[in-house]
């Protein structure tokens, strides 16, 4: 039986070496950083629909769905995006509520769901008549409330200031959406 001893020792040595090799391989595979596959695409922006309202010849507000390339990441960005799309005009032939070359400035969102949006002001005397004011104000208010979850009211500011009125409507406070102004 003495002749078996070297044989057993050799087998045990081989088993030990094999076990050590397996452990080393596993630990190496754990520590190795994942290999980046060349050409992995960036995350694709998710398109989204905005709901815009434009005044029609009947002076009612007409709904227009607008596909935008990327879903707005914040309420603030959403409100700004809606107003920018309104300023860009209708793609379905409705009238533009902003009848001067306007742009969107700062946009604030309060925890109560009020949006304050700064718009470059119209020339003096440019907005005439109740119908024009209603179309201008509520196309913006209805569009932002309809498109941006969590928004309850909208106040338009002009050149960074609160404007009491263009002569008719009270623009000195945030206004709620008016579904009754939307064409059936």
């Amino acid at each position, binding site marked *: 039986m003495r002749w078996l001893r070297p044989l057993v020792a050799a087998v045990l040595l081989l088993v030990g070496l094999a076990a050590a090799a397996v452990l080393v391989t596993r630990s190496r595979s754990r520590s190795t950083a994942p290999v980046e596959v060349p050409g992995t695409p960036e995350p694709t922006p998710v398109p989204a629909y905005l709901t815009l309202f434009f005044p029609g*010849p009947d002076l009612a507000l007409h709904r227009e769905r607008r596909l935008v390339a990327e879903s707005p990441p914040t*309420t603030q960005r959403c409100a700004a995006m809606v107003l920018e799309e309104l300023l860009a005009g209708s793609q379905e032939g409705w009238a533009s509520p902003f009848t001067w070359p306007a742009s969107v400035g700062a*946009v604030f969102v309060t925890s109560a769901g009020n949006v304050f949006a700064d718009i470059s002001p119209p020339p003096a005397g440019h907005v*005439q*008549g109740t119908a024009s004011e209603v179309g201008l104000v509520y196309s913006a208010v209805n569009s932002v409330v309809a498109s941006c979850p969590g928004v309850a009211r909208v106040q338009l500011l002009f050149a960074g200031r609160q404007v009491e009125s263009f*002569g008719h409507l009270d623009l000195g406070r945030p206004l709620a959406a008016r579904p009754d102004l939307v064409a059936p």
Partner: protein
Amino acid sequence: MPMRWLAAFFTVAMAAPLMAVTVVTPARTTEVFSRADLIDLLEILRLTGAEVEFAPAAGSYTARRAGHEVQFTPGGSLAVVDGRLQPLPGPIRSLEGHTVGNLAVASALLAPLGWAVHGDVGSGLILTPAGEAAPITLAVTREGGATVVVASGPPALPRARPAPGGLALHYQSPVRLATPLALEGGLSGASVDGSILTLQLVPGWEVAASYPLDDPPRFVVRLASAFPTGAAEVQRSGPLVVIDPGHGGEDQGAQGAGGVLEKTVTLAVARLTAERLRAAGIEVRLTREGDETVALRDRTALANRLRADAFVSIHANASPARGARGAETYYMSADASDPQAAAAAERENAPAETTTLGLILWDLAHVANLNSSARLAREIQDRLNAVHGIATRGVKQAPFVVLTGATMPAALVEIGFLSHPEEGQLVSQPDTQRRIADALAAGILAFLRNAPPPAPAEQP
């Protein structure tokens, strides 16, 4: 040569923009990021002990301290202070990873949090709790029968709130009267308690209007006698109606295709309507008798002071849509009477004393007037529908400034579209104006016939 290099070095060093400014607070002295006249606003705010946090959803910063809150956005020049929007004296910018603004902006952000900044960016800044009272100058003048009080001094404008015997102006920090007060007209005195300036009125006088002015910031309070005739009480045997010819003076309103102005048409129709009502035994006052500028809120204030039974504002419409035509009558938007708006209005006017009872009383008064205003609008529009050649657009609601403060049934009539080629011509013709006036007077009379008897007049 070395002297020239030395001079050049100092020239460059003096002209180079500052990299940091020393800021001293009661607790410590520290260096704050600075470029030219801009300073790091977030660091300055944190030095006062304010909590400053960034809200990714809103894209804005909020600083809170001692129950007050200021919200602002890099890239903007506005701030929301305790839920109320305020313009800032300059823009907030992002610069080298810092949110910066000039000293005036920093001061505007610090004031609501109870802190003040002194000094300048070049020589160093001192931050202190804003304990020292800001001086207020009161200028009192007479304009016709009115007394005008102009309060100037503090950079932040106050909120006005009715007070026993007068009006209280709530400033954001303590104030004091800079000069002795010259009493005039309806102003019997003024007193200061902390950040509240109270104007006391002579008995029988009321606040007709109050509004802010810019550059420099001022707050104007217009006082008027509650009894414009000078009599102890306006003894009325019948109802009183206030007719408001829209626009006037510098405010021309809309312009028709033939050059006709809205302010001219509305005055003509208002005069004709007043004639017809007077012929029916109704007392009538116009908010303007000629081509003069009258502020929107002053028009309603006149009707309130006279305790009129009805207020009717006359306008002519306009639209970029050239086909738009027709007459329509508005009354106050339901939006302005919903509980949320009531609560918001109450918060705006009474930051410290919002009460459930106050909201309930506000709601009751507003809803009662809303129903009567709707009936007044219907009575007028029903008669306007019969005027030949003018299309009907019905009765509608919208938040008109001129209707907002009315304490009686009130309506605004758009008698037709000046921008419509045919209708614009029609409403400028005297014959059509007479027929429109007939319709308006008939509608107002029908409303008054069916109105409930007025409550006994309160003794002042």
